[in-house]
């Protein structure tokens, strides 16, 4: 295993509530470049909300999120968006590809938003996720597994420092799920990106560098071998 490198994401003492309802509190977390961390927990414990807070898509009532050493949670919305555009990649349970764009254009989307179109890089990613030759197809012509590969390619095409994956295999059968996880891990390693993987699957978590379990107490280290 490669030694951990510089911290990409640092969260300190995060607290979040919806009105009177507390979602989580006192959450601290650090991810380093190239590291794959799995986050497990029961439904409704706040995993996705935490992910949104880490991405600056949701606000926190307490604590601080630093992304690439910048205080993401304290930045104004346009600066948050700009930092997210540059430094984050996302993979969702639902694939969320734009139906009116081709597969290649979907993958190219983050580069387009950054104003750095790069067809060669898009082709490179498509080949890497096993979709070479399918770039001109419409999303509706692909299977679920293929669509998630498109999402992974899109998450990595702009070389983000951190990929946030929210149950990326939730809509896939076990065989395809395993393939997609392996692909995500391999690509993150290859690109040097850290990855925070939210999952219900202990099997999926087993492939991570380390695992965290989220519950009412906060985040606890968790080991699949111990369960």
């Amino acid at each position: 295993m490669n030694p951990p490198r510089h911290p990409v994401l640092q969260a300190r003492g995060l607290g979040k509530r919806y009105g009177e309802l507390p979602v989580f509190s006192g959450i601290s977390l650090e991810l380093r470049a190239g590291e794959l961390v799995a986050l497990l927990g029961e439904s409704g414990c706040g995993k996705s909300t935490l992910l949104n807070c880490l991405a600056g898509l949701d606000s926190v009532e307490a604590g601080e999120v630093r992304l690439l050493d910048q205080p993401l949670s304290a930045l104004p919305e346009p600066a948050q968006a700009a930092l997210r555009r540059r430094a984050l990649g996302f993979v969702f349970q639902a694939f969320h590809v734009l139906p009116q764009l081709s597969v290649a254009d979907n993958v190219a989307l983050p580069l387009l938003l950054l104003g750095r179109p790069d067809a060669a890089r898009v082709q490179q990613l498509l080949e890497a996720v096993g979709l070479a030759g399918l770039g001109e197809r419409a999303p509706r012509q692909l299977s679920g597994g293929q669509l998630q590969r498109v999402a992974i390619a899109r998450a990595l095409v702009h070389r983000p420092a951190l990929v946030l994956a929210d149950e990326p295999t939730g809509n896939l059968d076990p065989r395809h799920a395993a393939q997609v996880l392996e692909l995500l891990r391999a690509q993150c390693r290859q690109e040097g990106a850290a990855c925070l993987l939210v999952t219900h699957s202990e099997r999926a978590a087993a492939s991570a560098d380390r695992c965290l379990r989220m519950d009412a107490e906060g985040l606890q280290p968790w080991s699949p071998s111990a369960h």
Partner: protein
Amino acid sequence: MVALGPLTRWLRALSWPMARAQAGRQLLALLAIALGVALAYGVQLLNDSALGEFEAAQRQLTGTPDLVLAAEGGGALSDDWPARLAALPGVQQSAPVLEATLNLLPGRQGLRLLGLDALQSAQFRPALLPQPFVDQAADAGPLALLAPDAVYLNEAALRLLPTPRPSHISLRWSAQGQTRSASLRLAGRVEAAGAPLAVMDIAGAQALLGRLGELDRVELRLAEGATAPPLPAGLKAVPPEAGRGEDLAALSRAYRVNLSVLALMALFTGAFLVFAVQSLAAAQRQPQLALLGVLGLSARERFALVLAEAALLGLLGSALGLLGGAGLAALGLQLLDGDLGSGLLGGGGQSRLHIELLPLLIYGGLGLAVAMLGAIGPAWQARHMAPAQVLKGLGAELLPAPPVWLGPFLLLAGAGLAWLPAWGGLPLAAYLGMLCMLLGGLLCVPPLVRALGALLPGQRHAGLLLLRQRAREGAGEAAQLLAGVLVALALSVAMLVMIYSFRASLSQWLQQMLPADLYVRSALRGEAGLRAPLPAEFVAAVQRSGLVRELQPQRSRRIALPPAAGEAQPRWITLLARPVPDESRLPLVGERASAPAPGLQPLYPNEALRDQLGLQPGARLSLPGLGPQGQALEGYVRAVWRDYSRQSGALLIPHADYLRASGDAEVNELYLWLAPGAEPGAVQAGLRALAGEAQDIEQVSSGELLAISLHIFDRSFAVSYWLQAIALGLGLVGVAATLSAQVLSRRREFGLLRHLGFSRAQLRTLLLAETAVQTTAGALLGLGLGLAISAVLVFVVNPQSFHWSMDLALPTARLAALLAATLAAALLTAWLAGRRSLGQDLLRAVREDW
């Protein structure tokens, strides 16, 4: 501020594929903007072109004299004045003018004749320089222009002649109570545009008109830098004729503004269609915009992107609309006069398009503004969405619902604004009031839909339960669905009621003003181009003939009222002297006053004169200079009468009082009642025989006059029916587009219902029933709003625009038909849209990503 570079890139890479995917709906929005701009700009351009042409012709006729002088008392000038004036210091040139209006035979069309000193006038009126025909030029010596029998016509006058062009023209006219005829040699043409015009040498004109040694005015050109000399006694300066164009522009302005407002209403209806299309497209795109938000498109950038898309749509729609408007105007100039058939500009001459930058920018800008306004709501939603929530399918940010009091408040505010007085002679406050009423009505749609839904029983039947729930939850969307059709229906109802009321009032007015069986007037022109009086011997012969049971004379002439306080010029009005045996047969409005002092004669100003002079019943009014010795008549305003034949001031006076005060026994029109059993055709033939030259008189029966008047009325309003149809069509297109989009956005819901056992037919019925609830609410509101707006049109807009009051009359059968047709069309549209949208694979929609 979002940089233009990235925005352009995003538009190309993100918006363009989206627009292509929704090509049909985007095209509809584009069409709505283009159509609205085209109609509004077309009406404006058509009128601008006609007015521009008229004013250009006026400028050509008037040239650029520095000073125009006429006799102080209004009579003729002696023809030694030009030489005397030329000798004054600072005067460079002085040119005499003699003018008359004659009738060109055989058609007896009016022909304006100018007698000029060609050599002097041509210096500053080149368009009036006589140009011999090419085939006569060789024979024409340098003095040919001065030949006393030679006349030169402009293009409009030449078009009245038969082909091949005759060598001579025949003229007929009336002067000093005598009918005269003459034949002149057609020697060439003049360039002047506009209405039919003839030019001849002043000496020839004086001889022709029997006015030797007389002039009507003298035009002066001053030396460079010279100031106007002091005016010799007996002369006064008069404004150049160009002012007449301004008068006509003012006269036709109200008509044009009304038509333009109607056209803008079509654009306004289009705006709701744009809003519906944009907001539903944005609703469909919310997850996609949310994804872009997650990937790093900031809230401001999403806002800018949606607005930029709308701006592009608006620019394209405006450009198409301006092109279409120019095309419509060109077509209109070919088919109608520039006044759209109202007759206000009098036709004559072929108009060309007068395209100016400012209206182009204004109407283009309106199209852009409409598109942008329609997109503000969706852009706001895109800006304020929580991307992560939307991606999870946990609902999008809804536009904040307006407070419940806003709808009723706008309705009340609109009603209040509608009764404010005119601004600058235009009912702008009333228009603003109508806009407030429409917006207020739209805001009242959701509560009305909820109220209608609550009336449905819905506890035991799944369909009814869904219907009730939909009425409650989807009431906000109903306003979007119905916006276009509600506005269009309200405006159509308003126009229908206003036109029906106007027509009914006009019909009644005609019957009151034209009680006789037959009317006779001169076909010839006389003083100041007005209809000549009938020859006295003809009137006497008719009285003696026994052809008619009863005869009443009418005298009409222009008189000058003394300048009002703060005015320099006297106010010219039309005076109508006719017998008033029974006041109740006059179309009087408002109260009748008794004489404030003994010896005052009763006078009846029309509504325009009442408004101009602020006259009220009981006010005293003096009419100076009625007779040749300057006799005056002292009178009082007995009552105000309704006058649909003119928008300018007119005063009606009992004929006997007029005759006594003025001694003027001339008669312009005869009102004739036939003896019982008399054959109208035989009486008309008898009258023609009495006239000597049969074509010098015009006869028309009351039935014909009624038919002609109503035909002209219908022609004037034909354009408005088309505009109503277009507005309604746009509204229905809006229903189709909105409903299709709503069905598409509810495909998961419908798919789930299919899973639960609903058949396609049941879904279609459900959709149709939902639409029925919504359109019923819209139709009821549209009807109510339309009636309110019609009251504003009848009681405020028309009196303020034209000085015409009228009585409100409801065409109940037509209103019911319009309502039924709109409801049926909306339901048919809903059924077709539902059939198409529900025909797609709904079962798959449940599993779809989005």
